[in-house]
């Protein structure tokens, strides 16, 4: 069972990494903005935004997948428009898998970053403003560096969640080898075939390895960053 991975298995692993990377990278700026808004701004509809962000955490993933299909499918309300005007298609493409993963991981990312922002002492930001820094500069030179560990934690969490996302992905973009078959989909597919347990187990080991590696890297990086910031 310790044979090297087959080409198809490699494709699933590579696809999962690619989907998770883009899902995390593209949603990160929006995640920081939403976390900042929820932590610091008092605006009408704040609770509604908070609810919307957290919805994918509470809904059954299959419901999220279905909603994505209805919205971003080729005939979906937004999807048809995107296809017609920009030639962007999410349905049954790896980009769709990334979209599904990003939405499922978004609440975790926002929570981690929001906690970090709430932990920043606003008095430091006041001090920066008396030294001549406007709001954007205060954010860039004081808030952002101080919440870096939180951003990192949020990004790693989102990446890990994206690696494991299954329900919404398979509902939205199906399970096409080489196209939308991520690691969890591949494990699921292997289990559907009689005698596929060995293949499934190999993929499970890969999955565990990737998750552990992500965790260790994040621990290491956040310890380094925290040390820099604590000023020791």
């Amino acid at each position: 069972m310790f044979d090297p991975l087959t080409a198809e298995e490699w494709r699933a692993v590579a696809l999962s990494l690619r989907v998770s990377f883009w899902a995390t990278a593209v949603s990160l700026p929006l995640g920081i903005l939403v976390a900042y808004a929820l932590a610091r701004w008092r605006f009408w509809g704040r609770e509604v935004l908070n609810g919307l962000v957290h919805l994918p955490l509470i809904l059954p993933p299959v419901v999220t997948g279905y909603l994505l299909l209805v919205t971003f499918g080729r005939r979906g309300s937004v999807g048809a428009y995107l296809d017609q005007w920009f030639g962007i298609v999410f349905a049954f493409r790896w980009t769709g898998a990334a979209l599904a993963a990003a939405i499922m991981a978004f609440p975790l990312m926002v929570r981690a970053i929001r906690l970090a922002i709430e932990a920043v002492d606003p008095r430091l930001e006041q001090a920066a403003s008396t030294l001549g820094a406007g709001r954007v500069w205060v954010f860039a030179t004081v808030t952002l560096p101080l919440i870096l560990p939180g951003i990192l934690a949020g990004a790693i969490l989102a990446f890990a969640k994206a690696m494991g996302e299954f329900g919404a992905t398979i509902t939205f973009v199906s399970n096409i080898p080489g196209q939308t078959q991520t690691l969890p989909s591949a494990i699921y597919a292997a289990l559907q075939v009689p005698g596929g347990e060995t293949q499934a187990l190999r993929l499970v080991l890969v999955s565990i390895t990737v998750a552990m590696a992500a965790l260790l890297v994040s621990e290491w990086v956040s310890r380094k960053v925290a040390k820099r910031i604590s000023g020791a």
Partner: protein
Amino acid sequence: MSLSVDLHHRFDGFTLSARFDVPQGVTVLFGKSGAGKSTVISAVAGLLRPDRGRILLDGVTLLDTDARIALPPHRRRIGYVFQDGRLFPHLTVRQNLLYGRWFAPSSAGPADRPAFDRIVDLLGIAPLLHRRPGLLSGGEKSRVAIGRAILSNPRLLLMDEPLAALDEARKAEILPYLERLRDELRLPILYVSHSLAEVARLATTVVLLDAGKVLATGPAAEVLADPSVAPLVGLRNAGAILTARLAAHEADGLSRLDSSAGPILLPRLSQPLGSVLRLRILAQDVMIATEAPKGISALNILPCRISAIHIGDGPGAIVQLAAGEDMLIARITRRSVQSLKLTQGAAVFAVLKAVSVAQENVGFGQP
């Protein structure tokens, strides 16, 4: 430079209604905690928006609620030294010091800018430049915070009890630096304090604040020698300041200082001859005699004239004495006022039981 402040603000059952001007030098905003000092200083910095008010700095309107003008803090060019330092933990001391320089307007030419090396020298923080704030001592943090505010090239420096969080030894470490700043950088400072010792040592001008109102304002020596102010600052602490020049070190271990009212002898001082010192004389350490006392151990006896008598509610009285060009206050009993038949204008002698040096050296900071 001039700052004029006129503020009205109400919150949590507290009403602040304060109006005063800040001239050159160090203006100490003095009062008990809860008097409204921090509210005033926050409003001047722009961190608090008062209900109503006007603040003008060098003719520039920083705040005018009637005209709906409120400059945000980062455009006021007012340096603020916070009580807790508030150094940026993710930056080195050098980066902290240079933080404000990024934003200082380029119109202020290099000649205007306080030179980095000079300020670092003045505050004695050169050995700390590569450290991070996390490992600095309280006194070191205070000095870095002061340097950071000055290097942002402000038009006015606000200091909110910068010494309150420090122990006596650290205070003693910082105070000389503050005096040097006052005397060497012609930067006006608005300094919040509830310590009379700091007022006596640093203040050029005093604004006395109580329960949200300005009770007295003027040159430090005048306000501290105002008999009606004494009960407000606490009778034990009330005291006037006297300026004197160190004239000679005598053979028996005493130093002679010349004040405008006469010589004063103190145990040997370490300052060089010719230094101008500020002496603090507590009201409870001054006795009054109607004739020149004979056969008395006290060395310091100054001829004075009674300029005011303030009778309190209790058994005490505060007598203000004109001693040469300076003022003293004495805390005595009403009974003594009556039995000695003290009246305004009477010539008397002040017997000083204790004199302390409030300030090392009076420099250019004098108005």
